[in-house]
């Protein structure tokens, strides 16, 4: 019993460290990007590997900052295009200008909540 408990604690510690590592790597990628794009992409690669190995969620802050297809670090206005669209359902469109991949993130839920708050 106690053994199981300590193991779970260790697992939690591991996940915490993994989250810290991801944060560090993306921060570094952001700083390095202006001078060396490939190094920034390499950091994203390592961050993704860490995230998958530790089975943690990608932090919300960094979720939209890399391309899901070519895994390059994205900076809006430099190598990514960000647009809001309303057709079918409201969503954010992010286009990676390195490989042309398009990512869509709906924000229907947030809109509905706002509508609800307005009514009250």
């Amino acid at each position, binding site marked *: 019993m106690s053994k199981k408990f300590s193991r779970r604690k260790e697992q939690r510690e591991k996940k915490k460290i*993994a989250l*810290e590592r991801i944060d*560090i790597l993306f921060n570094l990628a952001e700083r390095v990007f202006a001078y060396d794009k490939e190094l920034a992409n390499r950091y994203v690669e390592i961050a993704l*590997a860490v995230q998958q*190995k*530790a089975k943690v969620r990608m932090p919300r802050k960094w979720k939209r900052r890399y391309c899901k297809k070519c895994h390059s670090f994205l900076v809006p206005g430099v190598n990514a295009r960000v647009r809001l669209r309303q057709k079918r359902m409201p969503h954010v469109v992010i286009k990676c200008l390195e490989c042309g991949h398009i990512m869509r993130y709906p924000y229907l839920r947030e809109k509905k909540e706002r509508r609800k708050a307005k009514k009250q």
Partner: protein
Amino acid sequence: MWRNSQKWKNRASRRPQRKGEALIDKLWIFRGLDRGRMTKKTLLMHELIGLKVKVVKSSHPGLIGIEGYVIDETKNTLTILGTKVWAIPKIVAEFEFEVGDKKIRIKGEELVGRPEMRLKKR
């Protein structure tokens, strides 16, 4: 022209030849990052990239005294950026990392393993 095509790297002289060489005069980028709560115990599982490092001991005398920031890591090497870019095998050297104001000494043999695999070890 091959220099304009995106397929190949521009390797003309005075151009950066190796990965990260473009950053040589820009070491300030790595300063002042928040490193979480890193101790000697968690360093093994933590991120080495971005840390300041010094090679203290080595079986190869030429490597001793190399100082700089870690910019990349593979299974068997650390790439260090100082006044030059060095790739140092982990097994032969002993490193001294600078975390905040602490200094942590560690043998290179313990660091062997891909960066994401070190998380899982032990």
